[in-house]
């Protein structure tokens, strides 16, 4: 419903008379800044509660890259779960060693944690794996996202386990989830569709409190609440299939609002039923590092050997400021 106050063009919030800042393309509803914020925070709180993501006694490690999604996630976890603030919430930043990009994002991650008053651990590829991502992929930058994804996950898990985390919260949003779903379909890897991210042997369970939120709403939330968003984008992001899938999904979302949510919903249903019909693989361990693995070597060790860095047993986690 559109009311027409002073400036005839001003569109008002559906819930009050203040000027709207956002339109939900699915319902056609308009929201002012405070109703947008309230709705956004309620939706994240609902995702957390409905999926029992955070329970009393949990120790949550939030993966803080310093980018927009993880920054908003850290702010919201501190806001929605003040009970965690004392010693139940820590941020972990993985410094992959990407020149011209990581300096800014690591810096803004440090500042944010100070502002929120939460602990902060910085762990780096250089310290743990003996080389930066830049050095690892010098000859084949196209593989950067694959290599980085596996190594970052491993390092995050190690650091979270060392801190005593019972949950690892990541900033994956609706757009990420729909892109991943589509990419797994495009690559024809049915095994990857049924692959469970959590479960016995998968390490500290992961939670994704922003999984139902769009990047657009996350960005607007950050802008409206003066949450600093670094401008730098990862220089390797452009080289990936994900970048093309993102463009495609962006177009579909514009033409047919709600597409991303439907892709994720349908994909989850398929993954769930595939999992039910799957014979579980015998439990194996990587012969190099001893971590649970589907083959002789785990993904992390396979990649480290490929890039010429032998697997090393984890060195102690460096604290922020000691980097």
């Amino acid at each position, binding site marked *: 419903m559109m009311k027409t106050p002073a400036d005839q063009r001003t569109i008002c919030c559906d819930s009050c008379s203040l000027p709207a800042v956002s339109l939900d*393309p699915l319902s056609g509803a308009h929201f002012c800044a405070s109703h947008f914020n309230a709705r956004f925070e309620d939706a994240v709180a609902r995702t957390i509660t409905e999926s029992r993501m955070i329970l009393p006694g949990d120790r949550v490690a939030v993966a803080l890259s310093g*980018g927009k999604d993880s920054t908003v996630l850290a702010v919201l976890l501190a806001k929605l779960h003040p009970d965690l603030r004392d010693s139940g919430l820590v941020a972990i930043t993985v410094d992959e060693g990407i020149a011209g990009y990581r300096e800014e994002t690591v810096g803004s991650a440090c500042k944010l944690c100070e502002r929120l008053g939460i602990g902060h651990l910085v762990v780096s590829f250089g310290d743990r794996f003996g080389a930066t991502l830049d050095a690892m992929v010098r000859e084949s930058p196209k593989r950067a996202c694959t290599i980085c994804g596996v190594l970052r996950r491993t390092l995050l898990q190690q650091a979270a386990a060392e801190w005593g985390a019972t949950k690892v919260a990541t900033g994956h949003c609706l757009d990420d989830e729909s892109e991943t779903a589509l990419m797994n379909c495009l690559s024809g890897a049915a095994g990857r569709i049924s692959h469970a991210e959590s479960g016995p042997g998968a390490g500290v369970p992961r939670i994704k409190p922003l999984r139902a939120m769009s990047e*657009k709403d996350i960005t*607007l939330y950050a802008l409206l609440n003066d949450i600093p968003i670094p401008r730098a*984008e990862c220089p390797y992001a452009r080289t990936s299939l994900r970048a093309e899938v993102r463009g495609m999904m*962006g177009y579909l979302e514009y033409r047919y609002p709600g597409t991303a949510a439907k892709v994720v919903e349908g994909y989850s249903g398929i993954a769930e039923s595939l999992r039910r019909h799957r014979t579980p693989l015998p439990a194996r361990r990587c012969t190099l590092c001893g971590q649970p693995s589907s083959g002789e070597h785990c993904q992390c060790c396979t990649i480290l050997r490929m890039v010429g860095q032998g697997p090393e047993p984890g060195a102690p986690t460096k604290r922020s400021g000691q980097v």
Partner: protein
Amino acid sequence: MICLKVILPDGSSRDLDVQESPIENVLLSLGINPAGVIVARNGLFVPGDSLVRETDVLRIYLISHGG
């Protein structure tokens, strides 16, 4: 001539000769996917179905990707 001033995500600006029109049309004419940006009209964030006219300044914020 008075033109609509559009500030693009990279900070550069374009002057467009438009009559009153929906922001969506302005974005499409610039080859920008309206679902991929947030817009501010004269310094205030506005929903994508708002109108702009030649005396306005329209700032376009790209939705940044990644973690």
